[in-house]
C-alpha cells in the first residue's frame, strides 16, 4: 500500500539512519480521513517501510485498524483479498473445495525471501505496491487474473489488472495518495489447474525466475505468467495443447531482451534460460498435447 521507492531503487547512502523512522512526526489512523500531504505514506504491515531509511516520510497513515475483512468469497465465488490481509492470513485461509488453484497460494507464500515470521506482518497489498519483480503476491495474483481495486483520496475507485498494475521493477500504476483497497481473483481462475516453478541463486532464496501456469477450466487454454525473471509480470496465452516449439516461440517473441531483470539476484541470460526451461516444464505438466498457436495476452 505504499507508494514509495522500492528497496532496490534506494541508493545505500541515501540516508544516514535506519532502525526508527525518525522523520515521522505523526502516525495517523487512516479511519480519521484527512487530506493527503506530501511526505505521507500508507502504513500496511510496515515490513518494507521499516526496513530502509525513509527520510522523506513525515506521516504514516496507518491502515492497521481499517477492519477490512482479510479474505472474502463473494456470492459469485470470487476471492476478494483485502490489501491489509497478511501473508500469514492468506496462507492459513481454508481454501474451498473445488479451487484447483489452492496449492498455488502456499507455493507463492513460500516463495518470499522473507521468513514466515515476516508473514505475520507483511500484507498482500504491500507486496503489490512494492512492485518488485520477485514479489510473490504479484506472481500469485497476476497468474490468477487478479484485479486491483484502487481508491483515490477523493474516494474515486478504479480497477486495474494486477498484470497491468506493475509496470516495471518497482514501478506501478498508482497515483499520489491512491491506495490498493483489495485484489479480486475470479472464480474461474481459482478453478484452474496450476503449475509452479521457482528458481533462485540460493537455496530458499529470492526468486530469480518464478513462472506459473494456469489451465483454464472452461476452454483448456494455457496461460503462463512470468515473474521475477522479468521486470514486470508478462503473461503468455496459448490455445489448448501447445507444443514445445510453440511455448519456446512465445517466450522468445513475448519477452524482449531488455525485459529480463538485471540485478544481483541473477544474470539476465540465466533468468532467460530458466524462463524457457520452466515454461516448457509447465507446458508438459499441464497441457501436453496437439500443436497450438501461441498468442501473447495482456500485460501491455
Amino acid at each position, binding site marked *: 500500500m505504499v507508494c514509495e521507492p522500492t*528497496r532496490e531503487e534506494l*541508493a*545505500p*547512502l541515501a*540516508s*544516514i*539512519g*535506519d*532502525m*526508527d*523512522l*525518525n*522523520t*515521522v*512526526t*505523526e*502516525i495517523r489512523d487512516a479511519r480519521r480521513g484527512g487530506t493527503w500531504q506530501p511526505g505521507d505514506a500508507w*502504513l500496511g*504491515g*510496515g*515490513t518494507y517501510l*521499516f*526496513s*530502509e531509511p525513509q*527520510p522523506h*516520510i513525515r*506521516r*504514516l497513515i*496507518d491502515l*492497521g485498524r481499517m477492519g477490512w475483512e482479510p479474505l472474502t468469497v463473494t456470492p459469485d465465488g470470487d476471492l476478494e483479498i483485502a490489501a491489509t490481509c497478511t501473508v*500469514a492470513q492468506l496462507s492459513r485461509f481454508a481454501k474451498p473445495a473445488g479451487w484447483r488453484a489452492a496449492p498455488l497460494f502456499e507455493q507463492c507464500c*513460500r516463495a518470499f*525471501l*522473507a*521468513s*514466515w*515470521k*515476516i508473514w*505475520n*506482518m507483511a500484507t498482500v497489498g504491500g507486496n503489490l505496491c512494492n512492485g518488485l519483480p520477485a514479489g510473490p503476491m504479484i506472481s500469485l495474483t497476476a497468474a490468477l487474473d487478479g484485479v486491483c481495486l484502487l481508491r483515490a483520496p477523493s474516494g474515486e475507485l478504479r480497477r486495474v489488472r494486477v498484470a497491468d498494475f506493475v509496470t516495471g521493477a518497482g514501478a506501478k500504476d498508482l497515483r499520489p495518495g491512491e491506495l490498493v483497497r483489495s485484489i479480486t481473483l475470479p472464480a474461474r481462475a481459482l478453478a484452474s489447474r496450476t503449475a509452479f516453478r521457482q*528458481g533462485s*541463486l*540460493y*537455496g*530458499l*532464496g*529470492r526468486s*530469480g525466475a518464478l513462472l506459473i501456469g494456469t489451465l483454464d477450466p472452461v476452454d483448456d487454454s494455457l496461460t503462463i505468467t512470468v515473474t521475477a525473471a522479468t521486470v514486470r509480470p508478462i503473461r503468455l496465452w496459448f490455445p489448448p495443447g501447445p507444443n514445445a516449439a510453440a511455448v519456446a516461440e512465445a517466450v522468445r517473441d513475448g519477452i524482449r531482451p531488455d525485459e529480463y531483470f538485471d540485478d*544481483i539476484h*541473477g*544474470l539476465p*541470460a*540465466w*533468468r532467460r*534460460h*530458466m524462463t524457457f*526451461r520452466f515454461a516448457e516444464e509447465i507446458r508438459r505438466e499441464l497441457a501436453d498435447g496437439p500443436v497450438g498457436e501461441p498468442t501473447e495476452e495482456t500485460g501491455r
Partner: protein
Amino acid sequence: MSFSLRVNGQDTDAEPRPGQCLRTYLRERGWFGVKKGCDAGDCGACTVQVDGAPVHSCLYPAARADGRAVTTVEGLARGGELHPMQQRFLDAQGFQCGFCTAGFLMTTTALDEEQLDDLPRALKGNLCRCTGYRAIEDAIRGVKHTEEPDAGQAVGRSPGAPAGPQVVTGTARYTFDVDVPGLLHMKLLRSPHPHARIVAIDTSAALRVPGVHAVFTHHDAPERLYSSARHEHPTEDPDDTRVLDDVVRFVGQRVAAVVADSEGAAEEGCRRIVVGYELLPYVIDPELAMQDGAPVIHPKGPESRIFRPENNVCGEVHGEMGSVEQGFAEAAEVYEETFRTQRVQHASLETHGCLVSFEENEETGEERIVVRSSTQVPFLTRRALCALYDLPMDKVRVVAGRVGGGFGGKQEMLTEDIAVLAALRLHRPVKLEFTRAEQFYGATTRHPFTITVKVGAKADGTLTALQFRVVANTGAYGNHGPAVMFHSVGESMGVYRAPHKKVEAYSVYTNCVPAGAFRGYGLGQVTFAVESALDELARRLGIDPLVFREKNIIGPGEHMEGPGGEEEDLHIASYGLDQCLQVVRNALAEDRSAELAPEGWLVGQGFAMSAIATGPPGGHFADATVKLLEDGTYDIAVGTAEFGNGTTTVHKQITAGALGTTVDRIAIRQSDTDVVRHDTGAFGSAGTVVAGKAVMKAANALAEQILSFAAEYARTPRSQLRLTADSVECDGRLVSLKELFEAAAGRGVELFGEGHWGGSPRSVAFNSQWFRIAVDPDTGEIRILRSVHGADAGRVMNPLQCRGQVEGGVAQALGATLFERVLVDERGEVTTAAFRRYRLPAYADVPRTEVHFSETSDAIGPLGAKSMSESPFNPVAPAFANALRDATGIRFTEAPFLRDHVWQALARRRS
C-alpha cells in the same frame, strides 16, 4: 491517546514515538536481550513474540503493539526455571558469540511440529555467523554435548562456555546493553564522492536542529595521522588516516559527526550539513592505480611509511629463491593461471560501535575516560587513543563487554577515535553505533586479491618451481594492507617444497571501501589460487592430486622456506599435515555419497589443504594472573576479548587442570585494560596459544605458591601434597583453600600467580577440506553431497568448542565460496549494503561437515595445543573449486561460484 503494553508480564504505558519500531522501544525500556542485527528484517536477532506470534521487532511499528503482550528472551524462563529450549541451547552449546541466540530462542519456541520437521525453511529468518548451524540443529533436536569434567580433568573435555546461562537468558551484556544516564548519540555524515577535497563545510543549520549539541568536522580533528588497524607494533601499518580528513577517498568515508540528544536529531543534523567538494580523479582498479599517471590517493611523505605513494603502492614484496626460470625449464609441465577473490564482509551480527563515558580512576582519584567498545583489541585501542589525543594511559580505560562476533573486523579502531573526540570536547557520555548499512560501506572488508600462479613439475610429480604475482586491493586506506599481503604469500608458499620460488606482491590503494583484517589474513585468498593450480597441474600430469600433494609438502622438522627468507621463530613443533591428508584419503575410500546425486547431475570430488602459523609474527603479548580468593575459589584476569571464540572456556579449563579443580570454581575477568598490564588482543588465532599460555603459566605459578605455602602451613613435605577441587590434600588430610587463604592473609602473603607469554616461537597448524558435490548442468545449482574436514589443532583443549570453530569456519568460507560478495559500482560505491543484497549462509545453505582432528601434541603451545580459529576457512574455496572442476571439467578461477555463473560457463562450453 492512551497506550498500554505488557512486556514479559510487566505493564508499561509509555507512548512510543510515531516512527519507532518495537525493537528500540523495548531496548529503551531495558530489555537488552532484544538485539539489533540488521534492522531490516533479515537476520532475526530481534525476534520477539507478540501475543505468542514471533515477529522481527525491528520492522514492527511500536504503535501497533498497543494493547498486546510481548515476550522477549528475558521472559522465556518461568519461576527461575529455564525454558526447555534454553536448556537445550546450553546442552548442545548452540551458540558461539550468542548475539543471534535470543532470536533463535524466540523463533524455535514458537515452531509447530510441521516446522520442526522442516528446519531449513523454519529458520530462514535467523542468521548465525559463528556456528555453521550444526550446533543449533543439535540444540533444537535436544542433543546434549556438554560435559562436567571432574576436578583437574577439564583439559581435553567439553565443558560449556561460562557465559552460556547469560547468553540463553538474554542477560549477557554486549557492548550496547548498558544504560548510561545522559548519553548523547553520534551519527556520521559520509562522503558521496570517491575522491574529493572538502573546500567548504557549513554546519550552522545542523547546529540549529533542536537537540543537536555539536558538529565535528576536519577543523576539529587532530592533524595527526595514524592507522585504524591495530597491531602490537603500530609501524606495521601506514599512517594514512585522520579522525576527520579534508580529503575523502571513498564513497562512505566519514565527513562530519553530529552529536545530539537522540539519534533522530543527530540524523537530522547530518542532513543539514552543507559540504562543498572539489572533485578529484579517482581509480578503483588496483592494476590501473599502479600505472603512471593514475590519481595519487595518498600524496604523503616517508613518515607515513607508504612504500610508493606516487604509484598507490601501500606495500610490496619481491623475492626469488633459486631461479624460477631454471625451475620452469626443468619442468615437464607448467601451469599458469590468474585467480580472483571477491570483497567479503565479516558480517558479525553485532555492529561496530562504542560508548564513551567518564569515571573516577580508583587508583589516582582522578577522572578518566572509559571506552566500552565492540573490539578485539582493548589494550591496543587504549594505546592508540592515548597517542592520538596525547593522553596518559591512566586517563583512558578501554573495556569490551561480550562482543557479538569479530572475524578480524574488530582488530580496528573505527569508532572509538571519533566518539572519544566528542566526549572530550563535550564532557558528556557519547555513543556511536554503526548501522548494518554502515558495516558495509563504513567499516572494512576482506581484501580482494588477484593472484597469478605459475607452477612447474617433473613428470614424476616433483615440483620444480613455484611463482606468485599477487595484487591485493587495500582500498582507500592501508590498514592491514602490507601485513595481509606479507602473510598471504608466507605459509601458502612455505608449505610446499620447491627448489625455485619467486614472489611479487603488491598492496594497492584504490578509491574503494578499505579492506582490513579478515579471518585467514590473506592466506585464504592465495590458498584458493595455489591449491587450485596444484590440483590442475596434478591432473595434467595424470597424477592423483592427493599423491601429488604428499610428494611435495614439507615434512616434520622441515622449515617453511620462501623467497622472503624463512621466519626465524616459526617451527613445526608438531606435524599433523599427513594425518589431515589421510582424512581425505579415508573419506574417498569409503565414500558412497555420489549415489545421492539427482539423475543427470554432474558429480565431482576435490580437496585442498592449508597451513597457518599459530600466531602473528613480531610478538604477540599476553599477561595473566590467577589468584586464590577468600572463599576458596579462583579468579583469572586476562586481557583478551571473548567474541564467541571460546577462549574463556579454554582459559578456565587450563586453570582447572593446573589447580586440580573444576571450572565452576573459577571466575574470570577479561578484556579490560584495568585487569592486567597488557594484552595484544584477540586476533591472529592467539586466544588459546598466546593468552592461554600466559594463563597456564599464571595458574602453574599459583599452584606452586599454594603448595609451597601449604607445605609450610601444614608442615607436610611437598611431595605429600596434592591440589583437589577445593582443598589441598596434605598427606591424607584435607586443608581447605579457604583456610589456606586466611592463613596466608594472616601472614601477609597473597596467593597469586602471574603469567606472561610473548607469542614467540610459533608453531604451524594444518587443515584439509574435502567435498563431493553434484552440479545441475542446466541450472547451475550445486549440492554438497558430503563435506569432510581434517584439522591439526595439536592437543584439542575442548573438542566440542574446537569442532564448533571448524564448522563455523567452514560455513563462513562456504558463504564466500558460494555467494557472498560486496559489490561496488564504477565509483567504488557499495551496492550491497544489506543482508538481503549480501547473502549470508543460512541454515539451508550449510551441510554438516565431518570434523576429524589429528592426534598431535605441540611442543610450543600450552599443553600441546595449537590454534584453530582462522585456519578452517582457508582450504574450503579451493576444495570446492577442485570438486567443481572434477564434476564439470571447467576450472573456475573466480569466487564466488554462483549458480548463474556456473550455468553460463557450462552453457558456453556446450555452444
